[in-house]
């Protein structure tokens, strides 16, 4: 058939793509993950004994925590103590984000190759960011509580430190990928190092940096609600109280309020981020 169609011979090659060969990687990783899953789910000394049947049987039973959802005590939202602690949570999140982000921008600039000709400064900045991020912010809060005593200060310090690390990392990664044209142009026009940063690097990353600051604020808002559990200020203290005294109706009120606030902040910051980028 093809011979009579008069097409050139090259058109007769098989046009269907060949199926990619199954290498060693896929099967190896799959086997590893399956083994890991079996070990961790299995009900033995090194597993979690997770079973969906158990979950459904427990949920089917009467339970004071679940029943309390129906009788959530919204009066709690206007109680002066809860309100004060809620405002403290917001203040912690704002301050931690603003102070941490302010330090993070210069730190990000010196942790990239074009930003910092000084190799030692670059490595130091990266190392600080990596080490701080290796521990969760709540662990930092525990350490600061142990160091300076309980209250809002250790919470603020933990958020401050963690924000620096996260925003530095994200901004530095963005800086690594920017257009080097303006940098060269600035150098060619005889700009000093600081002028080059100001004219060629900062304007390119500012929108991304601003959006990371918004992300950091969301992260900090979530963390600042639980800082109080380890004694580092904010609404978490009240949550921990209600939990200890099993006042679930009050706990749910705070949780609902908190979810509403985070939801609103999340929507607002998504909107702002769209405007930025």
């Amino acid at each position, binding site marked *: 058939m093809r011979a009579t169609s008069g097409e050139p011979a090259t058109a007769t090659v098989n046009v269907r793509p060949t199926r990619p060969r199954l290498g060693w*990687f896929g099967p190896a990783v799959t086997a590893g993950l399956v083994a890991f899953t079996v070990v*961790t789910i299995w009900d033995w000394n090194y597993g979690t*004994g997770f079973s969906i049947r158990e979950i459904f049987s427990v949920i089917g039973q009467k339970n004071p*925590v679940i029943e309390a959802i129906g009788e959530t005590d919204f009066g709690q939202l206007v109680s002066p103590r809860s309100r004060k602690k809620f405002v403290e949570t917001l203040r912690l999140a704002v301050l931690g984000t603003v102070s941490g982000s302010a330090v993070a921008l210069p730190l990000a600039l010196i942790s990239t190759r074009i930003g910092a000709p000084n190799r030692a400064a670059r490595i130091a900045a990266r190392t600080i960011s990596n080490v701080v991020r*290796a521990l*969760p912010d709540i662990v930092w809060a525990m*350490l600061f509580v142990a160091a*300076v005593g309980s209250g809002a200060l250790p919470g603020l310090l933990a958020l401050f430190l963690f924000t620096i690390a996260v925003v530095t990392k994200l901004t530095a*990664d963005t800086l690594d990928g920017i257009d080097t044209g303006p940098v060269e142009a600035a150098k060619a026009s005889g700009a000093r190092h600081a002028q080059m940063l100001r004219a060629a690097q900062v304007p390119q990353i500012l929108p991304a940096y601003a959006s990371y600051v918004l992300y950091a604020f969301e992260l900090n808002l979530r963390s600042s609600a639980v800082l109080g559990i380890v004694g580092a200020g904010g609404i978490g203290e009240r*949550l921990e109280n209600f939990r200890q005294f099993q006042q679930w109706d009050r706990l749910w009120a705070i949780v609902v309020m908190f979810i509403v606030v985070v939801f609103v902040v999340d929507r607002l910051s998504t909107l702002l981020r769209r405007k930025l980028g």
Partner: protein
Amino acid sequence: MTTTTRAWPRRERQSWTWIACVVVVALACWSVLGLDARWGRLPSAPADLYTVGRLMVTNLTWNDLETCVEAMWDSIAIAWVGTLVAAVVAVPLAFVAAENLVPRWLAFGIRQILNVLRAIPEIILVMAFIPIFGLTPTAGILAIGIGSIGTLAKLCAESIEGVDAGPIEAADATGATRVQRLRWAVIPQSMPEIASFVLYRFEINIRVSTILGAVGAGGIGQVVDDALTTAVPRDWGLAGLALIIVVLATVVVDFISGAVRRRILAGPTGVTRVIDEPAIVAELMT
């Protein structure tokens, strides 16, 4: 009248920037003035933190190594099973939340549910789950699972929305059914990215599961919390050892998981270096 061309571009109007700055400064002032932080302790804070670090290092003993490693393993197991629970729910949900596969109103509705789920911190979930499930790993697993569904499903849906429409049209042109179109046109394109999101979320969830111990959910966080807040006097050496184990374990897991993720994204012949997109990393963390 000839229009003269300006030699330099007109400066963009920056009123928005100024408004943003004023708002941020106002918020910061409101926070500083109202925060009862007993600021007097601030100047000595770095020295105090150094003292804590020194106490942890000087009192370090290796007697509790086994306890710590086992507790860390528990945390990792809780994080992994929790991530799996999240993935099992989130990946199918993502297909119903993708605007190119379902009607817009449905995608929008599901996105809003996901946004609400994203708003709940895992620690609060575990506080509610412990009285229900007792001090079992199940409480932690469910907290991490439910806490990760929102973010995972949202990112996966965005990845599905980003697939090339060509294969979908091709599948439609051959008369493929809805399921066949998913199987042959959508899933092959989006699966690498979805798999890498799940792995990345696992890396984040290890950090989450290490702190769940602060409310008594077991794992390495419980060891740190017991050593620093419950024990009298504080067991600095144990806390130090536990923190060293946490750092080592997270670094090792990040390394392995990161290598697998990059290989998945780059493919068998991939020569391009895959860099973690900062915006996606940030999205995954929240």
